[in-house]
């Protein structure tokens, strides 16, 4: 197969499938409830004991207090990803906060929070600030 045909097939195939999936609603992010957030956290960290869960109003992130410290769970496409809040920077963002993890596999998360939510989340994320 010539390189030109290979390129057309690959680029066309990827673009076509991406368009089809997006137009049929497959880009929707997962919506979290407190119960779903707790279950998903334990799926990621089965050794943890969750004390309580705070879900953002937009439903795309949750803060969890665990016996080993706070953790953040967020929507990652149709699924979730979680990280313990151990090594990170919290930066103000027009839509809420941006968390920069010092982690190559999960570099950053933008939290969409209302004006009312922000002080509470800031206290939970950085209780000593």
């Amino acid at each position, binding site marked *: 197969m010539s390189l030109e045909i290979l390129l057309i097939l*690959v680029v066309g195939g*990827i673009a076509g*499938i991406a368009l089809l999936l997006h137009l*049929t609603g497959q880009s929707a992010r997962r919506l979290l409830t407190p119960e779903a957030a707790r279950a998903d956290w334990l799926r*990621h960290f089965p*050794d943890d004991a969750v004390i309580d869960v705070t879900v953002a109003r937009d439903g795309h992130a949750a803060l969890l207090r665990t016996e080993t410290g706070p953790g953040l769970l967020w929507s990652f496409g149709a699924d979730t990803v979680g990280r313990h809040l151990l090594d990170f920077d919290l930066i103000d963002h027009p839509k809420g906060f941006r968390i920069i993890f010092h982690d190559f596999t999960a570099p950053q998360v933008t939290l969409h929070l209302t004006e009312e939510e922000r002080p509470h989340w800031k206290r939970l994320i950085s209780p000593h600030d």
Partner: protein
Amino acid sequence: MTDALSFPDPTQLAIPFFVAAILIEFTWIALKHRGGRYETRDAVTSLIMGAGSVASGLVLGFIAYGFFMFLWSLTPLDLGTSLPVIALCFVLDDLRYYWVHRFGHRIRWVWASHVNHHSSQHYNLTTALRQTWTGTFTFKMVVSAPLILLGFHPALVLFCGGLNLIYQFWIHTEAIDRLPRWFEAVMNTPSHHRVHHGRNARYLDCNYAGVFIIWDKMFGTFVPEQASEKVDYGLVHNIGTFNPLRVAFHEWLSIWRDVTRPGLSLQQRLAYAFAPPGYSHDGSRDTSDRIKAKHLVRHPEDRGTPGFKGAADAGARGSVQQTL
């Protein structure tokens, strides 16, 4: 001895089939509302990883091929290209694949290349194409050396390897439940391979087969899919990025950071590169054996059931009981 022998690259020729099969699987799921799920960015990442893998093969393929041709110049044997020889090569190459794949899960250096294939939390036909860009750097071509030295031409070995990959494409689906019993007994199937992609403690490090599941049964690594435990796809520590560069290189970077930590002995540095994934010099991380052992502490009723039968589990149980 034949030097100039050429076979088509089956993986490249199969690309139109891959695209068509993905569209068929997606349509099936959309119509039936079962049999798997798709997500746009996840699928696009998988497809880009697949394209990158083909590109990587075009750019770096000469290294493996040069190594194979060097071996071919050494061997006095030439089995030719008759149909029985091609069939035998396909079977032996599948045995080669089993061991490469097993090393890929048990040696962190090789896992660094293979991890991206397991990095999706989805399991559909696009996941099959989430392939490595860095396979050349694992030196896995060494495992093919016996085939070349036995007299299988390098082009034939690569052709059989391509067919093996094409076979594995269709088993990355939830749309097919179980196949006839005789087929499930001999061949790798969607059910067997779903288990391989599981991050459940029960399903870690099993079902390494490419085409024939008999290798797992022979070498004690077979775990059947359990109706009582749905497969949870992805990595033990799932990644939070769709960026293909991060997907491709994250474990290599992690190895580099671990190996260059200050204050480690040479043995510990080597273990960070070549011990099973999850090794840590201070016990702060979990290998799959330790994850299984911890699971058994939480769920003792699972002891002795599929996925929790190995001698390694018994050994690791002791170490967990000491550390918990």
